[in-house]
């Protein structure tokens, strides 16, 4: 076998192996998307009921809670960025990080100091590489987040927002995550979690029936209920964001791996064509060598005959 042909054969073999791997990763990601989506659906009843309850307290009582009232001038804000632990998901992480950077720039332009909280190794690595300060970071659970993980993330954030901004606390809490719209579309979005604007929450709760909320009897009191309710509300929102982010990550991985598999297939095709041409060239050369050889031999014998 000629050297040229051998090189092509070797490359085809290695691309075939890569294709097998990417194909497997694609299928694993596809099954994980379904699982993650199911988790999002399973967590919806809790989130809906909680939103209803928050709306009920917010509209049914005139309590002033630090988590629902907007400070006159917000000076410090916290941004929670959700990324994934692992890459190979196309532009998934860079989109989320870009959205966070844009939000940070906007907040800083408004004269606010931004503290960044990050979930996922990719985001942490991005900020560490640029030697930027991270207030707090969590890694290791982005593929399959549980409610306990959401609690772990929410804890320090709630603590920070309850503290006065002069003592290192924050006035606002923003969250940046990747919303799972469909299998093909996921987009990085940012939203303000706290202080809660009750109108917005009420707007969200409304389409499910459009009924007027009744006057509730609070047990033990409206303030106490709100005190207990709001941290749970934040946790459930973070939990939902974590789940959506996980589903989006798997969908992005699936898409990236699908195009990698397709590309590997194309590469194998064109390499096989090149290998065929090389083989054909080799054969042609061999034939012409034989023909040339015989002709030379014939010439030589013809000469000795004379």
């Amino acid at each position, binding site marked *: 076998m000629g050297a040229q042909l051998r090189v092509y054969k070797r490359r085809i073999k290695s691309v075939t192996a890569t294709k097998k791997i990417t194909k497997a990763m694609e299928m694993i990601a596809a099954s994980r998307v379904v699982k993650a989506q199911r988790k999002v659906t399973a*967590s919806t009843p*809790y989130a809906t009921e*909680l939103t209803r*309850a928050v709306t009920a307290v917010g509209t049914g009582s005139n309590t002033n809670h630090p988590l629902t009232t907007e400070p006159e001038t917000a000076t410090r804000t916290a941004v929670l960025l959700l990324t994934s632990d692992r890459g190979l998901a196309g532009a998934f992480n860079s989109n989320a990080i870009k959205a966070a950077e844009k939000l940070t720039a906007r907040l800083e332009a408004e004269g606010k100091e931004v503290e960044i909280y990050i979930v996922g190794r990719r985001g942490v690595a991005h900020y560490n590489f640029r030697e930027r300060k991270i207030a707090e970071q969590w890694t290791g659970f982005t593929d399959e987040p549980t409610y306990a993980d959401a609690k772990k993330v929410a804890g320090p954030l709630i603590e920070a927002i309850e503290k006065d901004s002069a003592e290192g606390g924050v006035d606002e809490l923003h969250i940046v995550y990747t919303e799972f719209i469909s299998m093909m579309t996921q987009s990085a979005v940012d939203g303000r979690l706290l202080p809660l604007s009750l109108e917005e929450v009420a707007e969200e709760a409304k389409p499910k029936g459009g009924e007027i909320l009744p006057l509730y009897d609070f*047990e033990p009191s409206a303030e106490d209920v709100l005190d207990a309710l709001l941290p749970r509300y934040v946790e459930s929102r973070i*939990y939902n964001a974590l789940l959506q982010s996980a589903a989006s990550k798997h969908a992005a991985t699936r898409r990236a791996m699908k195009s990698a598999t397709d590309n590997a297939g194309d590469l194998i095709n064109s390499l096989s064509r090149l290998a065929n041409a090389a083989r054909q060239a080799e054969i042609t050369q061999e034939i012409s060598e034989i023909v040339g050889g015989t002709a030379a031999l014939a010439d030589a014998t013809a000469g000795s005959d004379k």
Partner: protein
Amino acid sequence: MAAELHVELVAADRSVWSGEATLVVARTASGDIGVMPGHQPLLGVLESGPVMIRTSDGGTVVAAVHGGFVSFADNKLSLLAEIAELSDEIDVQRAERALERAKSDADASAERRADVRLRAVATR
């Protein structure tokens, strides 16, 4: 037919139980509270403890609830809990072991959780 109320018992990551009931007894911060059909709209903070639901077909469903909320309006009762388990789902031996372990480790919250589970099973 006796009056009924619709009950939804949901945990953070799943819906645990839903159905029609005639009486629900739960423990709020200021004491046990019983809700029957037609109760005044109510929103309360739940303590860890067993929740008893008397279903409309005469049966009783008991669940261990670890913190959460109860809200009642329009004859619909929602029990929201971070963790909720039906008493049939609770593994008694495991809960007993957890209680022992929590006692020896002096882990108050784990001890409380295990205790709530066992109480829910006892009222089954």
